[in-house]
């Protein structure tokens, strides 16, 4: 009966609207922050940062962005990697052409460019719904991929279509080592998580969710679909644009249009579905599941000293990964975040079963 909210009363609406209304959660959060900022950098090796944590952090930002659109506003998009590409190429060109710009500003601008493009590709959502819209957004995916592969200006006339970046410098700090990147990205992620949380708790967030749950009723109480849907597209693309820029600059270092292909889009979608639609926390779970699990699965045979061929290992990885997706959905169709919530609920009732 450690985890209980009894005896924790709220005396104002502000207190009631806190993000973590339960005291134990706040303690846990502080401990977690100390752990990720202070303990992890001290104990983990480069590989974990470069291959697991950095992609995880960046893709979580992207997943939050996509979740705002799909999970909160109910507009399915299968083409969000394209907006990441927009962000990445916008940042590349900004850094290339206006070298004196501070990188934080570059990020914001890249996000804004992506938001603008997202807005344009969001227009069909005013007429098309559900999976139809999902497939329609594929047009964005393929068209934008194509533009970056074909219009030479975007890649600074690189003949291979591949671009590369130099390490980032900001306020005299060169973000180069894996740990530095990790800390920078982690801070960004926290900021973006808070912003997302704030948005979905505000009236704009409620407009999105209303649009998602029942669009006719939403209109009748005065929500304009145009505004709600397009802001969702814009904010969501903004997140993805920033994630794209980070993906290019902090993770890949050198990339080609293919780096932001349909597979990445689908992966983002997997993340939010596995993690939980309409849950910011779910994005963390989802990103961890999709980014980390395959890599871990791939290495399991080696760890347990079970000699199988790489081919077999990667086939197995596919099979187990697929089976796990189905398994988790069967256990909880609303994603890992819901599983987490149920777990917490049980903990709250513990030791009573109901």
């Amino acid at each position, binding site marked *: 009966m450690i985890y209980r909210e009894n005896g924790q009363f709220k005396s*104002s*609406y*502000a207190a009631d*609207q806190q993000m973590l209304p339960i005291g134990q959660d706040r303690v846990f959060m502080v401990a977690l922050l100390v752990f990720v900022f202070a303990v992890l950098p001290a104990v983990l090796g480069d590989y974990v940062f470069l291959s697991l944590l950095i992609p995880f952090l960046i893709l979580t930002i992207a997943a939050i962005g996509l979740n705002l659109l799909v999970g909160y506003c109910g507009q399915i998009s299968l083409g969000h990697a394209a907006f990441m590409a927009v962000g990445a190429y916008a940042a590349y060109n900004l850094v290339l052409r206006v070298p004196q710009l501070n990188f934080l500003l570059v990020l914001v601008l890249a996000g804004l460019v992506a938001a603008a493009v997202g807005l344009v590709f969001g227009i069909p959502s005013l007429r098309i719904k559900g999976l139809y819209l999902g497939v329609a957004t594929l047009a964005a995916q393929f068209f934008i991929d194509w533009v970056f592969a074909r219009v030479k200006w975007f890649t600074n006339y690189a003949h291979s279509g591949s671009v590369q970046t130099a390490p980032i410098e900001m306020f005299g700090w060169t973000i180069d080592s894996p740990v530095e990147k990790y800390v920078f990205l982690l801070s960004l992620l926290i900021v973006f998580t808070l*912003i997302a949380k*704030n*948005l979905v*708790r*505000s*009236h*704009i*967030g*409620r*407009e999105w*969710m*209303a649009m*998602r*749950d*029942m669009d*006719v*009723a*939403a*209109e*009748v*109480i*005065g*929500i*304009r679909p145009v505004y709600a849907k397009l*802001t969702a597209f814009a*904010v969501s693309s903004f997140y993805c644009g920033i994630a794209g820029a980070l993906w290019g600059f902090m993770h890949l270092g050198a990339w080609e249009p293919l780096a932001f292909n349909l597979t990445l889009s689908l992966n983002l979608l997997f993340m939010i579905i596995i993690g939980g639609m*309409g849950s910011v926390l779910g994005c963390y779970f989802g990103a961890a599941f999709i980014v980390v699990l395959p890599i871990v699965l791939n290495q399991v045979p080696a760890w347990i000293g079970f000699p199988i061929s790489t081919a077999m290992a990667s086939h197995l990885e596919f099979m187990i990964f697929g089976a796990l997706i189905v398994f988790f959905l069967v256990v909880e169709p609303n994603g890992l975040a819901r599983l987490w919530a149920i777990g917490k609920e049980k903990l709250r009732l513990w030791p009573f079963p109901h």
Partner: protein
Amino acid sequence: MSAMENDRAGRIGGQILAVEGVSLAFGGVKALSDVSFDVREHEVRAIIGPNGAGKSSMLNVINGVYHPQKGTIRYQGREYHHMDPHEVAVSGIARTFQSLALFKGMSVLDNIMTGRNLRMRSNILLQALRIGPALREENEHREVVERIIDFLEIQAYRKTPVGRLPYGLQKRVDLARALAMEPKILLLDEPMAGMNIEEKQDMCRFILDVNDEFGTTIVLIEHDMSVVMDISDRVVVLDYGRKIGDGTPDEVRGNQAVIDAYLGVSH
């Protein structure tokens, strides 16, 4: 038929909404043909009629969800051919739905808060940072909503996702959401369907209180004749998309066409 009754009658004002010659058809189905009636300020106006008579369609027309092929709507002195749902909301007409149209994934509180949406002004950046005016605004509106929650006695379910609530409570949340808009006219589509007597009594009380305290004009669709006869000031009767009766409950009760089409003998 007390003093209060007369008092009410005295408060009923002039015409606020008028539907004139509205016709609406879906393919071959004539949902409404040439229907006209008016609504006066502060009255409780009931619409009754058999299933499929076009009652919900009528509300949808007023609401801007359906655009009639013919006819006009006069509201606050202005004449519309059809209205846009958003415009309607801004001009102070709120509505509940026959088969619930709540936002299933949101909590009761959030559902009702959406009703305050039109009045919330802070821009997206302020909301993102949740500072200053955004936070203040949020708390102010929360207070209004809490009052409505108290009024409708759904305090215990504030944080519950509405999808999990039993039907009757969902109906109440639907009403609460509409009330949160502080509308001039409230359109209610079978607010008491699926309720037992006790709950119906509560609901009637809520409706009358809204009507009395806030002076909200009410347009009500309902199949329970005792409710309609008890609480409405005037009744429109539709049948197969046509108006077959209009008047006070007593007048309507005596109308032979209405008896044949709808009431039957038992009432």
